């Protein structure tokens, strides 16, 4: 082999090496199928600058569901957003919010041993991720059949939910689709607050109430992140509603307990309205 041939061989090896790597990233992020722009937008960059060096880390909705369950939140039949609704959400906005709601419902059912319902919610989550061109979250790990095969084994289902959560978290950050991430977290936050307030409305459990009040911190972060998109009408309305809920949580977190009962009723009503509006929004 002469020098030119060797150079050509080296060139092929190098281009395969570098080329494969770039394609790998594209494949796993699902960009090939979506055509989404992977470059960070000016808006995302601005959001990061305003909030520390990284995108703010929000808690996992699955972990929040687990925390509520440990505090004593029991399963209430019919309280969750019916999985059958998943096909009626048409706009990226309603898909993103209800994706978060279904993630909470999935975790809520799994932690409370409602396996059949959990499967329905797992499929509802898949329907919405597909609708948002996030297909690779489920495809890369063949998750739906694995979920069905592990029904009855809570530990395995929790592991699969965590894998789904990791795939989703990393994909949305890698592709800078932060609006979906924030809306989805908003949906999860609203649904967990809805389930908790519905239970507290009938029976005051101090541990659940404490965990509900703990959610004020992540709500504050969420509102700040959503404000980067407040030029969009639907984001503006959501921020207003969430800020109103935060006002109630601030009062309930304050040491002045004289107004707590009245404020709790306001909180239940505000969460109920926002949640039902989002569930019924197409």
């Amino acid at each position, binding site marked *: 082999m002469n020098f030119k041939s060797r150079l050509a061989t080296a060139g092929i090896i190098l281009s395969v090496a570098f080329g494969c790597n770039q394609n790998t990233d594209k494949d796993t992020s699902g960009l090939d199928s979506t055509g989404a722009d992977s470059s960070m937008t000016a808006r995302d960059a601005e959001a990061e600058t305003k909030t520390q*060096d990284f995108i703010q*880390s929000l808690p996992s909705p699955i972990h929040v569901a687990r925390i509520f369950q440990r505090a004593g939140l029991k399963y209430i039949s019919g309280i969750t957003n019916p999985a059958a609704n998943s096909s009626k959400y048409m706009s990226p906005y309603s898909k993103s919010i209800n994706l978060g709601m279904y993630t909470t419902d999935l975790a809520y059912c799994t932690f409370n041993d409602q396996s059949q319902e959990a499967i329905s919610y797992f499929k509802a989550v898949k329907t919405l991720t597909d609708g948002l061109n996030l297909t690779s979250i489920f495809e890369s790990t063949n998750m739906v059949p694995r979920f069905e095969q592990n029904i009855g084994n809570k530990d395995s289902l929790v592991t699969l939910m965590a894998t789904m959560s990791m795939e989703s978290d990393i994909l949305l950050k890698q592709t800078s689709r932060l609006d979906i991430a924030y809306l989805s977290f908003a949906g999860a936050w609203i649904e967990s607050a809805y389930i908790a307030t519905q239970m507290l409305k009938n029976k005051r459990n101090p541990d659940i109430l404490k965990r509900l009040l703990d959610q004020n911190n992540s709500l504050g972060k969420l509102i700040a992140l959503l404000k980067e998109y407040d030029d969009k009408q639907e984001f503006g309305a959501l921020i207003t509603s969430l800020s109103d809920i935060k006002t109630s949580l601030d009062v309930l977190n304050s040491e002045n307990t004289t107004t707590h009962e009245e404020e709790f009723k306001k909180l239940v009503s505000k969460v109920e309205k926002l949640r039902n509006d989002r569930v019924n929004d197409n």
Partner: protein
Amino acid sequence: MKKIFFILTIAIASFGQSVFAQCSDKTIKKLCKEGLGTYIFESAAFKPLTAFGAKKNVVEAAFSVYSQESYRVLNLCQGFSDVVEFAIYDTDHNLLFSNKSDKSVKFYDFVAQKSGDFTIEFKIPSADMKSSSCCVAFAIGYK
């Protein structure tokens, strides 16, 4: 000569792979799975060092914790000339942990005493300040 040429080519190709793979989703996922152990994935944050600007020698981020919950914070920084020093501060910004005395330690496990925001801080080695192959990254796991 043939062998040397081949080895050199492969070495350069491998170097290219590692440079581009530093902040890739595949690498982050792999490191999370390996490093979180029995902890369940909560969230990850990752960004190339170059995205912080050339003069940024301390990088920090906040993450939410809930009281009485068990967490693992995992340092996933990649591509640096030395292990990156990191520190964890609690909700009142008291220093809880630093790997300064033993940089080989890449994670910190704790039970949060209060709900709120913890902070993770990375000290970027000065030798790497302008490196384009470094990725600053961390992940949080819970039990």
